[in-house]
């Protein structure tokens, strides 16, 4: 093996695309380590505080693509205060200084300032792709910098970010010389864009495959855009409101007929249902449909649309589809692999809820289902057992019953058996979210059967420390564990402290863990950051009472010790 020239090794390693494989390869011997080190092209960092940018650059000097994740998952639900952290600026700065040839940057749950975007746009001549998911801290001014300065930009993909609109015509900042765009997604922006600039941009980017518009782009603009871009594969419609008897609508229908490559449809942020028939043609070939931001499509219109989608593999929908509507999905979409049903109104009142009936129907009709996110009003053990039997291939199963401690309404029992059936049947389950009334028993099942489980989300569940221990002892591949409002305390936390170094992170909020427990853990495990979020200054008294329960604890393994950008309300023990 040592006699292989490095170029050959490198060529072989090129075929290894997964991070896991590449990590494994670098452990074989010193020369493999070195070859892999210099040929590593893309790096994934699941927790931006696990390592510093300087060390990353030292380890992989030639990477071109970086994925970074910042805040803990529960930050999506406002459980983490603003200013907690997750700033991307230091990363961009370090890469710029070190001359990293950055081409792709994907960020999730990070704080991205306009300064960061500006620095990014000016520091990396070959920069091609920016994907921001669930980020915040920037405005359309930052986007203007990206548009103006990134000469070879191929991808600008903004997903569910909170972006402040500065009305600065950011889209018009793409120079006339920019023809390289392949993907442009600005559906989450609240403001207007210059429609003429948009049309011209689309016209000159002949390789544009993916385009998602925001609500500021009306139907007549959509029509003109589609005329210029019949090669689109992925279309997100902004506003879809017009008079179906008009000339414009007729022109739209003609334009759509020429778009024979569209396989993915989303948006409909504003919708006039009588205009929907124009897209039926697209639906025939669509494999991915996201109507989760389209409350305007419901009832019979929604059903008619779905009935055209025989090739659907991925469906994101609102629960106004109802159980009956899910029945239609089950009989129409036989290729369905991923389903997400979101609540259409969260404040207690919905137009039509979905229940266990809809889910059972889907499982019976769509045996290929392997990924589920399902918000519903109720669930039964019988239903979950049936689903487990019909669909044994789940790798992602997330169930959210809107009343978090609701039992099986038929038997009034906890949902332990139902979830137990799911973990037992889906042997490749990697991600699981629980809800409903649950005792320690469900965790016994999870520990016993969920051998591939990597991420587990627990809320309002369990009776005692035993529950958490079943999981920590049983799930050997567990990487992320997040728990809220459950009665797990120091006993569970401290039993196997070594486990946490094999995991990415642990979140516990509103549990029974005390300050003393956290301090003990921090002392035993120097390579973990044990952070306490101390919002209400409950731990103000000095010295604070160790017996006090900790409201929010977030711990994660790290190679670089306590972070230096923690705000006052975050204590690293």
């Amino acid at each position, binding site marked *: 093996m040592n006699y292989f020239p490095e170029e050959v090794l490198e060529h072989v390693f090129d075929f290894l695309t997964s991070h896991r494989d590449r990590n494994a390869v670098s452990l074989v011997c010193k020369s493999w380590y070195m070859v892999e080190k210099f040929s590593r092209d893309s790096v994934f960092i699941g927790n931006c505080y696990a390592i510093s940018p300087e060390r990353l650059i030292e380890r992989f000097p030639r990477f071109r693509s970086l994925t970074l994740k910042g805040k803990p998952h529960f930050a999506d*639900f*406002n459980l983490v205060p603003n200013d907690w952290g997750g700033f991307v600026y230091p990363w961009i700065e370090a890469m710029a200084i070190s001359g990293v040839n950055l081409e792709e940057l994907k960020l999730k749950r990070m704080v991205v300032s306009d300064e960061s975007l500006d620095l990014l746009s000016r520091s990396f001549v070959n920069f091609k792709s920016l994907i921001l998911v*669930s980020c915040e801290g920037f405005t359309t001014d930052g986007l203007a910098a990206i548009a103006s300065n990134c000469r070879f930009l191929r991808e600008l993909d903004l997903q569910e970010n909170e972006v402040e609109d500065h009305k600065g015509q950011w889209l018009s900042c793409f120079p006339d010389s920019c023809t390289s765009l392949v993907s442009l997604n600005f559906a989450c922006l609240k403001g207007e864009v210059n429609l003429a600039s948009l049309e011209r941009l689309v016209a000159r980017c002949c390789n544009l495959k993916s385009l998602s518009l925001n609500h500021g782009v009306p139907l007549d603009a959509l029509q003109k855009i589609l005329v210029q871009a019949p090669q689109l594969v992925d279309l997100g419609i902004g506003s879809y409101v017009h008079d179906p008897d008009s000339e414009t609508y007729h022109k739209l229908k003609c334009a759509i007929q020429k778009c024979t490559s569209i396989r993915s449809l989303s948006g409909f942020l504003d919708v006039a249902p009588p205009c929907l028939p124009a897209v039926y043609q697209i639906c025939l070939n669509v494999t991915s449909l996201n109507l989760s931001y389209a409350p*305007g499509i419901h009832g019979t219109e929604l059903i008619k649309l779905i009935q055209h989608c025989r090739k659907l593999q991925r469906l994101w929908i609102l629960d106004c589809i109802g159980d009956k509507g899910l029945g239609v999905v089950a009989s129409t979409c036989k290729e369905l692999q991923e389903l997400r049903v979101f609540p259409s109104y969260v404040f*207690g009142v919905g137009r039509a809820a979905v229940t266990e009936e809809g889910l059972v129907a889907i499982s019976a009709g769509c045996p290929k289902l392997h990924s589920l996110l399902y918000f519903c009003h109720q669930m039964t053990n019988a239903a979950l057992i049936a689903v487990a039997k019909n669909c044994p291939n789940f790798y992602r199963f997330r169930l959210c019953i809107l009343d978090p401690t609701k039992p099986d309404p038929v038997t009034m029992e906890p949902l332990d058996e139902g979830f137990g059936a799911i973990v037992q049947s889906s042997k490749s389950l990697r991600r699981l979210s629980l809800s409903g009334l649950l005792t320690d028993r469900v965790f016994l099942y999870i520990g016993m059967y969920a051998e591939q489980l990597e991420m587990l989300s627990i809320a309002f569940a369990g009776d005692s420390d035993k529950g958490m221990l079943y999981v920590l002892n049983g799930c050997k591949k567990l990487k992320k564990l997040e728990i809220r409002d459950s009665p797990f305390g120091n006993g569970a936390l401290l039993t196997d402290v070594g486990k946490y170094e094999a995991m990415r992170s642990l979140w516990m909020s*509103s549990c029974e863990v005390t300050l003393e427990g956290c301090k003990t853990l921090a002392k035993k495990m120097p390579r973990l950051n044990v952070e306490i979020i101390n919002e209400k200054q409950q731990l103000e008294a000095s010295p604070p009472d160790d017996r006090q329960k900790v409201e929010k604890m977030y711990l994660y393994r790290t190679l670089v010790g306590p972070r230096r950008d923690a705000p006052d309300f975050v204590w690293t023990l």
Partner: protein
Amino acid sequence: MSSEASSYPKEAELELGLGLSLGGGSGSVKSKGCPWGEYDRIMTAKDFPAGFSRGANASAVGAVSGTKRAAESAASPEVGSASSSGVSQVVGWPPIRAYRMNSLVNQAKTTNAEEDKVIGGNDKNNDTLHKKVNHGKGKTDTAVKEKGHLGFVKVNMDGLPIGRKVDLNAHACYETLAQTLEEMFFRPTTTISSFGSSGEKERATQPSKLLDGSSEFVLTYEDKDGDWMLVGDVPWGMFLTTVKRLRIMRTSEANGLAPRFQERNERHKSKPI
């Protein structure tokens, strides 16, 4: 039904009941034995005491503590209502990305008013209920419409440098808002015992101390004009359209407003429904 509710005249019970079933959410449609199912009619202004906006939630019947206590206890036998009004008060639940939550609210203003019959409904009762539910919700939508991108507003408390944010759209009345704020600022640990299994009303329904003047703090808000006002005077819907941010102020700094609270509370307690 508790004895408290039965002490009111029968008519009032009926009215409260109607308010509850219609506001109680479509979850109740699915549950068996909904006690109010036979009361099928569209609610009109006369169902509500004057000056209060229609809201989706049962407790929108009044921020007035006397009426509200009865309303809440009357809600206890109803599965849907209990679970749905309980859910809206938990921070970070249901687990939906804040961006999506805010979007839902903003999109409510552009939703088609003319709704098709809901496919999910399987009986006339259900459909009528949905029409009423949406009718009832209309006022809240209007309130949201006027406010634009209302969702989370800042809340600061005297003496604490770190503020919080609260989602006003998760509430349909002052009481639940005040309770949520109390949990955020005064009760650091949320015990799970506050969530009984659905159908049992185990949730503590003590009237909020922030609203009745018995705490050393009062709840105030800054309105569109930049003035600081006491929370609770105007109808909820109107409040939504003018509130910019909240502040939990020391009563001592509130310049004699607290006694007014006490007085107002007593006045309403003695008022017949």
